[in-house]
């Protein structure tokens, strides 16, 4: 299986008030295409920072990130935005849907940004909402949906541009146990059926166990990598 993502010795520190926090102190790993990877670590281990760097939302101080053969650090801000739009999908802990748009419009948004024709965008968004099991709630606004439903909309939005890589930051962190498991199973199902690569950041060991591999992160360093037997 080809390597989709190669992270080489990345370091990142940021300022929090007067203290400089060394969030990542040299992290390296690779992800295969179609893999379901979990990044497990306690809070403050740097796992969110890692996800932001992989997701091209921020640039590391040092190191290289090779996504799909491209060194993303050499790209301009606009090119990074384009990369996020077309190659990467984000799923957040707090769902992060736009409150004034309906479920359908939220899923359509990345297509609109990519200038996909309106009719085509509508069809695509509908299809994905049906895929995540929300075919009947297309025109509901986020405030009219449950947490689990909102996260499904977010998953549909993350997948709508057919990204190479889907990044999930504590996707179950704001859900009750049952909804959380539904989401994890949905992601796993999408991974298996659509051969979609997932990187899921979590602090929940049980969630991580669903993955193909688990990367243990502590104090900004990779503590260990474990393959989960099927």
């Amino acid at each position: 299986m080809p390597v989709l993502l190669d992270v080489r010795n990345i370091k990142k520190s940021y300022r929090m008030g007067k203290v400089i926090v060394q969030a990542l102190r040299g992290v390296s790993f690779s992800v295969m295409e179609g893999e379901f990877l979990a990044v497990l670590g306690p809070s403050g281990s740097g796992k969110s920072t890692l996800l932001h760097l992989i997701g091209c939302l921020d640039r590391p101080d040092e190191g290289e990130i090779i996504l799909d053969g491209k060194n993303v650090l050499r790209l301009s801000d606009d090119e990074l935005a384009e990369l996020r739009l077309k190659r990467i999908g984000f799923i957040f802990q707090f769902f992060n849907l736009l409150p004034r748009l309906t479920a359908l419009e939220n899923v359509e948004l990345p297509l609109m940004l990519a200038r996909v024709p309106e009719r085509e965008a509508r069809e695509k968004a509908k299809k994905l909402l049906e895929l995540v099991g929300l075919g009947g709630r297309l025109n509901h606004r986020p405030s009219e949906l449950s947490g689990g439903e909102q996260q499904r909309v977010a998953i549909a939005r993350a997948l709508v541009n057919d990204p190479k890589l889907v990044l999930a930051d504590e996707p179950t962190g704001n859900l009750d146990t049952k909804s959380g498991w539904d989401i994890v199973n949905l992601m796993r199902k999408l991974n298996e059926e659509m051969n979609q690569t997932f990187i899921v950041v979590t602090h929940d060991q049980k969630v991580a166990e669903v993955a193909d591999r688990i990367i243990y992160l502590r104090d900004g360093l990779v503590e260990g990598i474990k393959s989960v037997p099927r």
Partner: protein
Amino acid sequence: MKPSKLLGMAWLNLKHRKLRTVLTTLSVVIGITTIIAVASLGEGFRGEIKQRLEHGFELDVLIVFPGSFVAGLREGFSQSDVDYIKGIENVTLVTPLITVPLTEDLELCNETGAKLGAFTIGGVNFNEMRELLPQRFTLWKGEFPVENETGKMILGYKASIVNETMVADVGGNVSLILSHGFMRWNFTVSGVLAKGGTSGITNFDYWAFIPIEDAIKLARNKEKPYQIILVKVSNPQKAESVAMEIEKHFSPYSVTVFVPTALIRQVDGILNLVQMFLVAIGSISLLVAGVGIMNIMTVAVMERTREIGILKAIGAKNRTVLSMFLAEALLIGVIGGLIGEFTGYLLSYGLATVLANFIQPSGVSIAERPEVHRIEMAPSFSSLWMLIAFIFAIAICIIFGLYPARKAAKLNPVEALRYE
């Protein structure tokens, strides 16, 4: 993102903050209303004044007086002066006037000895005067002397009618009496001029005209008998250059050439300046609206920081975020501008009605001279002004929206996502 989608989202966001949007738009409406009202009223007023001036003067006739404000009164003009002016390029007709003021010592009376209403005796060539001032030098009754025969008189309207009584009619005899009968010249009234109407320099209501040959007898200086020379030019646009040629012939400040087109141009220029000044003051209210937009949008950017982070995370470029916020500013500008144009239109008529009562000529002069009609205070809407105001509204909104929109576009996505 497609412009239609951008506008759609902007509209959605504006709708979500209804009260804020309405108030911000209102400030733009007030700004545009002010500009439209001031500009259209100014334009209307300017047009009215200009029209009145053009009505009061013959634009192709110059009036040459001896002396000037700088050098004081001078003696009259000689025949050679008149001949010189005749030779200037673009001059089509020149006619001199001899003016003799009527005083205690020189009176104009009818057969019964009653004084006529005239203030001035004018010695003219009737045919030339008719050619020079075809609209103004016209008869109400009687006829002009055909060959400028001596002993004929043409009266101004107010010269023949005193206190609504005709004191000298066509065919009547009138006399010029010097020093209570020391000398006496008799004339026959051959016609009465039509009422002069609006003010202007060539209003002949209080004149009594006699042939120039008769007037020379009254003149003190027989060598330089003419007090006024009327000069007709081929085209009003040539008036000022002809005036300069005339002035060159005489020693500095020894003549005054009255050029109606120059006067109208000056007055129009001043009114234009006043109008611009008022519009500039009106524009300040739009600037204030702009600051309001900047303020409200800065708040909106802060409130929507997280949303901006989401947009960036899912792939919106900086310029897309910028356009989203500018689209909101644009919508406020377009809506505020359109409503403002409409309310400005209404306000102009409202103000015109109110103002009309303040700018009439003072009561006394209206009573004495009923021919001075009311000043019309109708606003004049030029599509150019409407367009300028509309573009101005949009420009202000965009310019003031630019700072907050740039601020939004430049937000760091990670920090924006973390924002609570």
